[in-house]
């Protein structure tokens, strides 16, 4: 159970596959246009319930409850070893230029 007043994310379908623009490519036309947004939950609910939210600028929205206390999960990814090689090669090249 997620308590009223919790910061949550909700998801809703904006356009079903049939309602999509005529110009979109075939692969996109097969799927719905989906919207995700966040706000404060207006009543106690469970994940998956259809709920009302008020965003932090005071806008009302609704949708399927996805997550309580969501974050934007951004990080620096995993190691990409060729970047080490690029760094080393560049430094070596500059050393060679300076020694010429």
């Amino acid at each position, binding site marked *: 159970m997620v308590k009223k007043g919790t910061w949550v994310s909700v998801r809703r379908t*904006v*356009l079903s596959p049939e*309602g*999509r*623009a005529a*110009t*979109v*490519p075939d*692969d*996109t036309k*097969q*799927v*719905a*246009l*989906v*919207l*995700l*947004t*966040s706000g404060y939950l207006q009543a106690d609910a469970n994940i998956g319930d259809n709920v009302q939210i008020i*965003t*932090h*600028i*005071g*806008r009302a929205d609704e949708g399927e409850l996805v997550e309580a206390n969501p974050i*934007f*999960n*951004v*990080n*620096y*990814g*995993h*190691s*990409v070893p*060729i*970047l080490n*090689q*690029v*760094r080393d*090669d*560049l*430094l070596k*090249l*500059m050393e060679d*230029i300076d020694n*010429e």
Partner: protein
Amino acid sequence: MNDYIEVISRKNQIMKQSVSIDYSKFEYGAISFDYEALMKQVPYTVQQVSEIQRSHAVGNTPLIELRNLTKLARSLAPKGMGARIVVKDEASNASGSFKARRASLSVYQAKKLGYKGVISSTSGNYGAAVASQAAMAGLKCIIIQECFDSRGVGQPEIMEKARLCQALGADVIQLSVGPELFYTSLKLLEQTGYFNASLYTPYSIVGIETLGYELGSQCKEIYGKHPSAVVCTNAGGGNLTGTARGLIKAGCKTQLIAASVNLSGLHMASDNHFNRKSFTTGHTGFGVPFTTNPDRSDVPRSAARPLRYMDRYVTVKQGEVFYITQALATLEGLEKGPAGNTALAAAFSISQTMKSDEIIVVQETEYTGAGKHLQPQLAFAIDNGIQVKLGNPIDEKAGESIILPSHPRLIKAQDLDINNLRKSLIKNAVNNAKIPLTQVDYEFLAIETNSSVDYVKSCIEQLQLNK
């Protein structure tokens, strides 16, 4: 009629209310409009714009000479060649990119006209720019992004921008892939009555003029001369248009070069292709269509008209931009976001074809951070099945591989045929016309394509398009 078609049919009315510009009063002939009269909707001189921007932590950014990258370029060039490479550090604007210039006048105008809030549809740095300026002005802000594919997988770079927009107080609405973002935007403009802080209004483009103006003046002050070339990363064309107009106002005659990441082969509205690209802007998928059909933007008449101003249009590969981003950090001590370095990759190559006493200016950098950095973007590409390796970037195939050059001599900006772009613009304009073109339209197209009436007429004859 379904809801999508109904909302789109109210487009012109919604636009008029949300930007307070009646575009129809500038239109004439079959396809023409008075561009300069439209731009005069912003009643400020470049000095006044500059004052407004400086009071909102925008502008007056440093011009930084890239001594080691210049040295490296000269080592690869014939004797006496290798222009000095300098960069305008636009990352030092509030919100971390030149887009702050673009947002500043829009938000200033929205506040002045009494709007309670602003809305912008953008997956790029412009969202944070609008959110930042709105926070300063005390206006509410909604940012709408195209962010994830049908699996729910979001682009790391766009997720970071969403985080920043929310941190700056904006309501962030994230959508799955598709051009119907515009429909969501129109509905929200109608529901809220907020100002449409579109990237393509005169406010947005006049806001960038200070970039070109500063750049020309700074170059003259530091080096005693104007640059021989200015390279602009190109997507919707506003960056190049505003910069060019500012350079003209500074009395600076220079070659204007557009640069985009080559993403040919990928469809921008394809759900399957969405996460197979590592650049979400500054690429040919936006750059070419907006150059050849500027009014495909979200306002009736775009104030971004790059083909009026560009002398050359070059492309670079994703691998080249990632490489130069690493080189900028390693050799110059400047860690910046990759997308903003598209023009730098091009400039590094073009410098080698210019004389060593010439100057080539890269007119922007952008902020970097988690997600919006070459390592997470390359890691994401690898996780999405893209082959990332060292080699010759000429072999890179967008959506399949990212090839970082095994040596900096392999960085080669590739020219697009500017005449083909001109012909394509003329063809699009003729196709968009509902009535036959007349002399005034030929004159308009000559200005649009930076060519002549004779050229326009011969193109139309050649294309056998005269209806």
